[in-house]
């Protein structure tokens, strides 16, 4: 992994490192050459690691007090909120932590889209990231079921029922998932088991994600390949560590505000009503972070095709490194892509918005147009753009446009400052 040999100074260190090169690894991590022009959009990797660890630690404590049984789950959550020491704090951190996690992951993904971080040679990092994102959605969905409120129960019913759209075996699969003929206690216990398992799978994939990142090194705002280490890079420690730490603290202030002052604003009021299989809520809506996909699902009149469209919307991202035919990574030097990028951002926000509204009338029409555009962006616009777009000249190195009197200087500097 490391480019240069590392020799521990102490005798014991050398003895240990020869047998298990942990010190070499630590040295690699601290010295890791990082582009020095990374902006704050690059701090979300660290923030996401923090989110994952927070969820695992608070989740462990919650699991000590939670009872995964249809008759007791809701009561045990109230027990945590009232009688467990600081149980309310742990639970609110965990519940809002899920939203913060998704907020950070969406910023992380859209940063990647803007700066073309998914392009060669970083395709594997990107695909591992998509798998992590999928697992996050699964974990979040199952976690939302655990309090066994009305939205938990009916959300679980709606989402598991999607599998019934599969021809021939669909109904059988749904029965198998439920462990019975409706969402009930067996469903709850298996969801709890999986909700406990998935974060550790994510943790393993995060290690791979970072490992794969450390092979080519970070992409950067101007998206060029850089020599490392060179005057274009800084060692990860202390430069990036302190910068990530600063960004993390800013993020934690927002996080704390939600936890302490509006802990229930991101949840649905109906989830404080205990699950009742005989009473269906007026509107069944998923958590905010799943709304764009919910909108895509509902915009297709056919159930099976709706499910296919929803899943394609996620899996299409995995093919992105090959759908985007442009050789230039950063949108800074792609004037047309930059326009389409912002349209896509707006499109996804609109999808999220109509996902929360009833699927009828104008909302349904907007959802259909936005869904069509989403696929158009990835399947038509991106591939064509790579061939048609006239890109701006790119600088040779990070320092070059600033240090020397290069002809690219003015363009590169202007473009960089005019973005975000």
């Amino acid at each position, binding site marked *: 992994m490391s480019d240069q040999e590392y020799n521990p100074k102490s005798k014991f260190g050398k003895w240990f490192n020869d047998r298990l090169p942990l010190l070499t690894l630590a040295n690699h991590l601290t010295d890791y050459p990082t582009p*020095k*022009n990374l902006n704050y959009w690059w701090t979300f990797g660290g923030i996401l690691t923090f989110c994952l660890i927070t969820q695992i630690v608070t989740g462990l404590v919650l699991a000590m007090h939670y009872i995964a049984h249809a008759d007791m789950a809701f*009561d045990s959550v*109230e027990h945590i*909120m*009232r009688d467990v020491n600081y149980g*309310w*704090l742990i639970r*609110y951190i965990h519940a809002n932590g899920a939203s913060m996690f998704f907020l950070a992951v969406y910023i992380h993904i859209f940063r990647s889209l803007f700066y073309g971080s998914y392009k060669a040679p970083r395709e594997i990092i990107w695909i591992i990231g998509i798998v992590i994102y999928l697992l996050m959605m699964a974990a979040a969905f199952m976690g939302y079921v655990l309090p066994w409120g009305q939205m938990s129960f009916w959300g679980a019913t709606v989402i598991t029922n999607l599998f019934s759209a599969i021809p021939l075996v669909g109904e059988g699969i749904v029965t198998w998932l439920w462990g019975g003929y409706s969402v009930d206690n067996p469903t709850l216990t298996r969801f709890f088991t999986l909700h406990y398992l998935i974060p550790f799978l994510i943790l393993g994939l995060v290690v791979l994600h970072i490992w794969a990142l450390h092979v080519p090194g970070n992409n950067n705002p101007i998206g060029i390949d850089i020599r490392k280490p060179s005057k274009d890079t*800084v060692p990860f420690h*202390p*430069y990036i560590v*302190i*910068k990530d*730490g*600063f960004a993390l*603290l*800013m993020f*934690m*202030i927002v996080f*704390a*505000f939600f*936890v*302490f*002052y509006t*802990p*229930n604003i991101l949840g649905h*009021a*109906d989830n*404080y*009503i205990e699950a009742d299989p005989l009473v269906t809520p*007026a509107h069944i809506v998923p958590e905010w972070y799943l709304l764009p996909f919910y909108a895509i699902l509902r915009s297709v009149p056919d159930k099976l095709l709706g499910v296919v469209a929803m899943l394609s919307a996620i899996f299409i991202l995995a093919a992105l490194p090959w759908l985007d035919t442009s050789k230039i990574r950063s949108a800074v030097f792609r004037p047309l892509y*930059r*326009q389409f990028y*912002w349209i896509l*951002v*707006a499109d996804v*926000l*609109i999808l999220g*918005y109509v996902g929360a*509204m009833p699927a009828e009338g104008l909302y349904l029409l907007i959802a259909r147009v936005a869904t069509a555009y989403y696929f158009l962006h990835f399947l038509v616009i991106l591939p064509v753009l790579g061939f048609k777009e006239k890109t701006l000249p790119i600088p040779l190195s990070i320092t070059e446009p600033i240090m020397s009197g290069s002809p690219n200087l003015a363009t590169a500097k202007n473009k960089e400052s*005019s*973005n*975000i």
Partner: protein
Amino acid sequence: MKNFYTILFLLSLIFGFQLNTNAAEKVEYLKTDWSFKGLFGKFDRSALQRGYQVYTEVCSSCHSMKYLSYRNLAEKGGPEFTESQAKAIAASFEVKDGPNEDGDMFTRPGKLSDKFVMPYENVKAAQAANGGAYPPDMSVLVKARGGGVDYIYSLLQGYEDPPVGITLDEGVYYNKYMYGNKIKMANQLSDGLVEYADGTNATVEQMSKDVTTFLMWAAEPHLESRHQMGFKAIVYLIILTILVYFSMKRIWSRIETKV
């Protein structure tokens, strides 16, 4: 940057449109100043004590509060009855206990550790006594309703004669804040219904406010310590952020790159 603003503008148009359509459908809830809102929000002790009185004398004949115990009434951040008061309150209820050594169930006066006594044995009994409608448990009621405290406060004062053209079935009442306007709970509050121990004039508005405050505490018993801890945590984070910011500037000043 320009694109970013364009998108912000488009989004604000959409959201603005949405707010307008919502306003046309929804009724505005009645507003009052809640002492527990805001960064330093705290419960008004006497409002909580009065609210408890309204709950026991009026609501508790149909609505349970199964997650509350009598000891909660004496805990910090709640109504803060003295321990002897809370013991007396608990003892005024008959609690079913058992089985004893002979295998029989028996009743005894309530203790601090007992949960609030439920008005009905079970949901079915509650439904049977209330024309098929189950009076919901009120422990987390304010968190289980979209409008929260404002909704409950308004609902209690929202009874009026149905508009012309709307006929109501037996046992159904008209309430302008209820979803669909039809509610199976009759108007419960009338001026002077309870006689407050502290001499406060028991108007419908006063009782609604007191009992809603009590319900807010019941749903969020740790609200006060949450607000206190939140303020400390955020101040601490802000100071730390500033310190880290200057450390960062200092470290990055070693190389000629802005951070």
